[in-house]
């Protein structure tokens, strides 16, 4: 019995004090990179076509999206603008509404990205393009995935 009994020396516990820091770092990374999905898809998720000559879309705030695809249990291609199924004629109002949210000098830079299903008809796309031409929204982008084009035709 002694007051100065030797303390047993085990392996010292690893300090977890810096764990929050690490986790916070990851957290900030994901917070910054995350993009909340703005619209809920009413159509079936379009299977985008593949292409190799693709360009990245810069400045996402200048991009408005038009979805084209099928609706469960209904025939024909449907167009989705914001969060509802719409008619081709509504495309112009959609673009006008998009323009409202941007300043004057950004309007020529606005791009319309068409996210269309691989099985859609070109006719539907052309109708959209025609509407866009009518209101002078000329910059468009056919949204595609990177991949071999031969996968488009099966």
């Amino acid at each position, binding site marked *: 019995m002694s007051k100065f009994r030797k303390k047993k020396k085990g392996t010292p516990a690893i300090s977890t004090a810096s764990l929050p820091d690490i*986790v916070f770092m990851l*957290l900030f990374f994901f917070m910054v990179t*995350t993009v909340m999905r703005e619209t809920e898809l009413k159509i079936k998720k379009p299977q985008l076509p593949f292409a190799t000559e693709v360009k990245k879309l810069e400045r996402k705030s200048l991009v408005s999206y038009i979805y084209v695809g099928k609706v469960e249990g209904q025939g024909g291609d449907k167009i989705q603008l914001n969060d509802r199924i719409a008619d081709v004629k509504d495309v112009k109002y959609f673009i006008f509404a998009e323009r409202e949210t941007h300043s004057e000098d950004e309007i020529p830079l606005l791009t319309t990205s068409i996210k269309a299903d691989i099985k859609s008809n070109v*006719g539907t796309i052309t109708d959209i393009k025609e509407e866009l031409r009518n209101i*002078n929204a000329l910059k468009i982008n056919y949204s*595609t995935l990177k991949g071999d084009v031969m996968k488009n035709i099966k």
Partner: protein
Amino acid sequence: MARRGLPEINAGSMADIAFLLLIFFLVTTTMDVDTGISRKLPEKQPEDRPDPPKLKEKNVFIVTVNRNNDILVEGETFMTIDKIREEAKKFIDNGGGIGNPMKDAQGNSLEAAECDWCEGEKNPASSDHPNKAIISLESDRGTSYGTYIAVQNELVGAYTDLRNRLSKKLYGVTYTQLLKDAKNSPSQSLKDKIKNIKTKYPQIISEAEPKK
């Protein structure tokens, strides 16, 4: 007597809170980058516009995709998608005649001249000059979007290949690399190089309205 200070707040659960948030953002995050084929639509012409200038048939390369997704080139040859790129390149790069007048780097007008950077066959029955060569893509309303994009991709690819080749010859790096460099460290000389390549192989693809 030792003074009792405020007890320290236990920060041990900080990690848990952070983890919770982390997991939330991990789940909601979508890392997809939006990529696609960019196009500029032609402006709407007024009703009373003058008739467009007549084009020589040999300067137009017509690709037709019908409702069965068959591809017809120049109205006579059936083709599979993987052949289009070569065929389009041959057409653009033919250089069989005199092109439209161009401007040099200083903006002075140059005489209309032959295409001295083309390596094509110089077939008089094919396109005169890359700046006269027009690719017209005709489609049917019933064509599937996948095929349409595949053909578009091949046509854009033909231009990219030619631009890459020319850029490699002139500057030792590919056009794609030039674009990448210009994005990372923009400079006037890079811009001029890109512009030069672009005017030598201007991308002229017309998307005709589909037949009803």
